[in-house]
Structures are given as structure tokens and as C-alpha cells.
């Protein structure tokens, strides 16, 4: 992008800059007067690239776009903004379990952590806007299941859950499977491996 910016780019900059919340492509297109969504998408990609090296970045989080400061400028800004709530270790663990396993019931969280989870921990995460109830599991007792929110993606700078750190590796190594499944799989593996010895 060089020379004069295109008028759609300018319009998107202005709208995203002024917006109080992250905006979807649909919202942007309709706000700018029913612009073609493909054009908006292209322009957003162009702008994201344009702003990538700068002190302000344009990012997509859970299909919503917003401007934010560049991560490496954090040290310049942090001194004035130390208001971020500290999360307990229990809460960070529960959050990770919800994020990597979602949707997940409280019993499932507890079975991974090996300890009872107080309702307060989930409340803290829900209050932060990162976790929300996502219906009930259709098993006896119909337990409530939990999932992460778009705000979670936004807060942790994730475009989608696929960007969760190490999620592919965790999935590939079966770390996201329940213990019983993993156990059955391991026993099957062992049986396979032992057979040649026995023969």
C-alpha cells in the first residue's frame, strides 16, 4: 500500500478507530452503508498488513476486528495501567481446561484437576467475561457445560480457538482425551507391542 489510501480503507480505519467494541465484517459493511463484504475483507487484510510494523495494530479476534497497541510497546504503557485483575492459579487452570476442552462440565474439570472446583472459581471467570455456560450435556443429571467467549479470544489475543498455544500438539498426543480413553488406547498399544514378543 503506497500513495493515497483507498477511501474504503480510510473509512474502515475511522470506523474501527472510533468503535467502542470490536466489529465484525458484517457490522462494518452495514455501518459504512452496505459496502460489499468481500471488499471489506480485502481492505481489512490490507490494513492489518499496513499497521503490522507500527505502534498500533489491526487484529482479528473471533471474527471481530479492532485496533490495539503493539505488544512490544507494552512496557511504555503498562505503568499507568496495572488494573488487570490477578487470577488465582486455580482460576488459570480452570480457564485453560475450559478453553482446551470446551464444552466441558464442572465434573470433567474436576476430574482433570483431581480436586474439587469451587463455584467461585467459575464465577470469577464468568465475571471476567471469558467463560459462559453453553447449555447442558444430555447425560443423566444434565450437567451445565461451559465454553469460552469471544471476549476470551480478544483478551488473550487469539484469532480463534485454533490459535490456543500448543492445541494441535496436545490433541495429537491425546492430552485432550479423557484418561479412560487414553488408558484404553495405551492398553491396546501395549497389547500390539507385546504380541511380537509373545510370538
Amino acid at each position, binding site marked *: 500500500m503506497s500513495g493515497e489510501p483507498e477511501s474504503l480503507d480510510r473509512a474502515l480505519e475511522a470506523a474501527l478507530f472510533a468503535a467502542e467494541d470490536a466489529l465484525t465484517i458484517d457490522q462494518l459493511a452495514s455501518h459504512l452503508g452496505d459496502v460489499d463484504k468481500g471488499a471489506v475483507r480485502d481492505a481489512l487484510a490490507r490494513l492489518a498488513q499496513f499497521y503490522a510494523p507500527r505502534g498500533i495494530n489491526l487484529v482479528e479476534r473471533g471474527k471481530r476486528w479492532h485496533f490495539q497497541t503493539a505488544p512490544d510497546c507494552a512496557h511504555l504503557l503498562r505503568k499507568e*495501567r496495572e488494573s488487570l485483575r490477578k487470577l488465582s*492459579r486455580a482460576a*488459570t*487452570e480452570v*480457564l485453560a481446561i475450559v478453553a482446551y476442552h470446551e464444552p466441558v462440565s464442572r465434573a470433567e474439570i474436576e476430574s482433570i484437576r483431581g480436586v474439587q472446583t469451587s463455584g467461585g472459581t467459575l464465577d470469577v471467570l464468568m465475571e471476567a467475561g471469558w467463560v459462559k455456560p453453553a447449555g447442558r450435556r444430555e447425560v443423566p443429571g444434565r450437567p451445565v457445560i461451559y465454553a469460552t467467549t469471544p471476549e476470551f479470544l480478544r483478551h*488473550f489475543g487469539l484469532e480463534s480457538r485454533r490459535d490456543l498455544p500448543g492445541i494441535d500438539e496436545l490433541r495429537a498426543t491425546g492430552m485432550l482425551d479423557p484418561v479412560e480413553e487414553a488408558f484404553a488406547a495405551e492398553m491396546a498399544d501395549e497389547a500390539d507391542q507385546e504380541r511380537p514378543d509373545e510370538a
Partner: protein
Amino acid sequence: MIDLPEGGTVLGFDGSDDAEWGGVAAPGAPDDGALHLALEGWEGPLDLLLELARKQKVDLREISILALVDQYLEFLDGAEQLKLEVAADYLVMAAWLAYLKSSLLLPKDEQEDPSPEELALRLHLRLQRLGAMREAAGRLMGRDRLGRDVFLRGSPEGLRTHRTIAWQADWYDLVRAYGQVKARNAPALHTVRDRQVMTLESALDRVSSMLGVTLDWMVLEDFLPATADPRLRKSAMASSFVAALELARTGRADLAQDDIFGPLRLRRRRQQAPA
């Protein structure tokens, strides 16, 4: 491979994990405060076991369950502050681990089902999963977080949708409205239409003079003047009726009506001899 961060000393865990969690408070806000008063910040026996396993500095798949069991039991022995009533979970785990250890040490053919190896494998798997989640949590917390590492615009103007009313009126509405105002407020001239009526006086004259001619009953209609104007006829009828009533009242006529709405008849009253 699960890459676990290094921890502090086994028995002297003092919450120095803090830094690894990217600024989040590690211990201190546990699920069950009482438990952690006794066990210095472990989130249950599994958490403690994981911490001990990490001290073996090998892949979680390779850890020695026997060594882990010994360390766990040793830790519980050394935990002087251990309060029995709050550490039940730890003691149950200790008992289970002691059983597991003895099973593992027994000759293979004396083992029951499930085998101690299978139990140990389950423990392995559980520790791996917890370890994976703990590491994931650490990496998650270490990301560039909104409000800590990256910031939104300080004072966005906000996007607003303004609703404006576009008033609609057209020329016709306008002109007609004026016309109606004018018409409404134009000085009004009321004229009462000139209408032929038969007054009561003339009816009295007519009825009484006609009564003088005969002594027979006559129907009221017979007294009415001949006219084509229905309005005048109505007026004559009303006046003649009142005249008939007046004549009856003053004793100059008799009135008779056989049925309701029947013909109203009247005749001259015979003069009584003034006795």
C-alpha cells in the same frame, strides 16, 4: 513431549511459581482455603504429585512411580502442619499410593486385577493431563493480554446510530389545512328555512268551527286542511290534536279512541241544559 517449567524445592514450596504464570497470583486464592493452609498452596494430592514428578526432571511418561510414591509419603510425614480434618484427600491418596507401591513390589503372579501397572498407568495419564493443562494455562497467561500488554483506544468516540425524523407533508396537505382553518373560522351565517305551519290558534278556530256543523263523530284527519305539503300536514295534525285536547278540556268536545294508535274521533258535546 511436555515441557514442564522448573519448580522450587520439593518440601519448601513457597509460591515462587509466580513468575511462571505471567503475573498471575499462583497460590493464595485456592479453592479450599483451609486445605491450603496446611499444604502450602497445593491444589490437592494430584497437584502435589505433579509437583513431585516434575522434580524427577524427566518426561512425565518416564517418571518412576515408585520414587514418586516415596516422595509423596515422605512429604506427608514431613508436613508438620498437616491438619487431619482438612487433609483427608491427601491421606486417602497416601493410603492408595502405599497400596500401589506394595503391589508394584509384589511378584507378578500374585497380582490382582486391575494390575498395579495399570493403576500406575492411570496415575501417569492423569498427571500428564494435568501437567499439560498447567503448562497450557501458563502459556495462555503469558500471551499478549488485552489491558496488560496490548491496549485498546483510550477514549473511543464510539459509533452511533442517530435516528432522525424526516417530517413528511406535501403541498396538498398544506393548502388543504389552510383551507380548512379558514373555512372553520369563517363567520357563519345561520338562516332558518321559511316553513309553512299551522298555528294552534288557527287549528282551534278551524276545529271548533267545523265541530259546530255536525253532532256525529269525526276522525281527526277530517279536520285537517287539504294540502300537498307533507310538512304542513304534519304541523296541521299536531296543532289540530292539541286543539282537540283543548276543546275536550274546556268541555266543548268529546274525544274517543278505540285502540292504541287507532283513529282519534271527536264530536261536539251536547249542550247540557244549565240546570
